[in-house]
């Protein structure tokens, strides 16, 4: 099933969906397995798996460190692809890959899409690939039915949002604020106005990410957006309290 459709059918049952994030290979693929199992058990609706890259320019300190340690431990793109295939075979929620464009470019764009499709990956989040830089990429995305998730930012104009929307599929990832991943965001009036602009620009579901850490944050966007993205927070949790803490944490979010 296409990503958007899957999400919409889940949205029919829930006020807000939860998407979580992990960095593949950090601290190990074995731990990733446990964490994902906890997440699924906790009820997440979608999981974004980051293929580590040596230059994660849009990520903050927590994810940056996870990327570096994963690579230092020898995580390869092939291993990530295989891991994705394993997860999609095991769990009935959509899995996405998040990574930077160079990973795909080096892998070979078409090969990457082909492998994603066959691995059952539903979408790709590539923060450093704006549509005007990825003609071939977006063509292939349509062809292989792997949704290219695009990003709206508080600095995006209406015109830009419309432009992005034309290339997007699955959902739109609305970055909650300026900055990188892993820091607190304010869900205030300005944020509401921004989200309203996003809503007006697209018919796709809206995910909100950057700085969502707890039930209160999730509540703050419920009714305004469709998906809450929990990123660095679960990495912190696993680092500090171990994988077992993830399930209860997810369950406590809604």
């Amino acid at each position, binding site marked *: 099933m296409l990503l958007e459709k899957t999400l919409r059918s889940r949205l029919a049952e829930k006020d807000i969906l939860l998407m979580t994030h992990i960095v593949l290979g950090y601290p190990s693929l074995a731990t990733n397995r446990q964490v994902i199992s906890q997440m699924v058990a906790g009820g997440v609706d979608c999981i974004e798996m980051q293929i580590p*890259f*040596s*230059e*994660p*320019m*849009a*990520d*903050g300190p927590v994810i*940056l*460190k996870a990327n*570096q340690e994963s*690579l230092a431990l020898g995580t*390869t*793109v092939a291993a990530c692809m295989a891991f994705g295939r394993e997860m999609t075979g095991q769990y009935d929620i959509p899995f996405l890959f998040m990574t*930077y*464009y*160079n*990973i795909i*470019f*080096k*892998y070979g764009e078409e090969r990457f899409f082909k492998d994603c499709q066959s691995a059952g990956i539903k979408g790709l989040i590539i*923060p*450093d*690939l*704006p549509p*005007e*830089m990825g003609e071939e990429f977006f063509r292939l995305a349509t062809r292989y039915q792997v949704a290219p998730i*695009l*990003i*709206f*930012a*508080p*600095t*995006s*104009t209406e015109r*830009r949002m419309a432009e*992005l929307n034309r290339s997007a599929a699955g959902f739109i990832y609305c*970055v909650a604020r*300026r*900055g*990188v991943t892993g820091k607190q965001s304010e869900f205030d009036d300005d944020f509401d106005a921004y989200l309203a602009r996003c809503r007006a620009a697209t018919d796709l579901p809206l995910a909100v990410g950057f700085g969502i850490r707890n039930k209160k944050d999730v509540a703050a966007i419920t009714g305004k957006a469709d998906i809450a993205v929990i990123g660095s927070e679960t990495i912190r949790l696993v680092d500090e309290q171990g994988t077992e803490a993830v399930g209860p944490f997810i369950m406590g979010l809604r």
Partner: protein
Amino acid sequence: MENKGFFGKWGGAFIPEILHETFEQLDSNFRQAKEDPQFWQEYLDLMSTYSCRPTPLTFAENLTNHFGGAKIYIKREDLNHTGAHKANNVIGQGLLVKRMGKKRVIAETGAGQHGVATATMAAKFGLECTVYMGEVDVQRQRPNVFWMEKMGATVISVKDGSRTLKDAINEAFRDWVTNVDTTHYVLGTACGPAPFPEMVSWFQSIIGVEAKRQILARHGKLPARVYACVGGGSNAMGIFQGFLDSPEVELIGVEAGGKGIDTGRHASRLCGRDASPGVAQGYKTMFLQNNDGQMLETHSVAAGLDYVGVSPILSHLAEEKRVRFASATDDEVIEALDLTMRMEGIIPALESAHGFVQAFKEAPQLGRDEAIIINQSGRGDKDIFTIAHAFDDPSWKEFIIARGKEYAEDKKGKS
């Protein structure tokens, strides 16, 4: 941007969405400036009153006689204010910042020269300034850190990744996406997302314009070859632009050969076989990366050349065979430096000395009626800790030991 910032298949602007508007603004301001002769005139005025442009073209008579071939001329970017060609770019971007009305600048720096230049410009233009610098480079270019701080800049030591230039760039981008409204990122070389490669090259073209005029006046004809070291590629692009339209002038970019091109411990992207096309830090070029697209550790005695990527414009010119690339090892660099100091009384920066190495190899092959130009991108003063170390200078070491003890005892005394 009509060609979306591509040069052949290289370049582009692979940037996070949050920066989109800022790049639009930057690009349109840059386009306006580029078409506005008054802007360039203001730039020239500033460069000739605040820095020392035109910088001289020095005839290296002793080196010429020593090698017995082509006449060796040296373009003296080391005589710029702050001691390197970096000033050209930074003052230019400073004028753009004024146009855009931003109040804060950030920069990455490897050798520290770009950081010092940016801190200087920020002081002069009354801007807030933060400079990101890899921890490894902070160590090897400590004097530059000191001066940046004294000029009022905040220097942030970047402890991620290889702790060199590329990591400083990442960190600068992280700052930029956070403070995008108030801040301009003064990228220090002809790399990064468009319009930076074109823009930085434009400001640096002042070198080539002058050099062409100067060599014609002095030598009566164009040089046979022009040499420049290539880190990100800005000084090379700067001087090459004076001669790109003259196919009879051979252009040679010299990359960091580090411990030797076969050891893997180098930073040669356009010569050697370790680099491949990639997209990182916002642009497409030849990167030193593994098969998965992960960037490799690079090495050079010269912090300013110790970088995984290279100007997309140079990747294009390499592909078109308009520019030839070579590399110089750390050892060759120290040797060329030594010779240049002793024969000409000139101290090239370690970066610049790479260009000298290749020029010295080729000068004897050329006729005495030919001329070559080496672009001396900066002065070696900044490198004293590295050079003194490389020469294993005993009295320098004694001096540092004594000073260190003194400070250590002071500290003990106080605590």
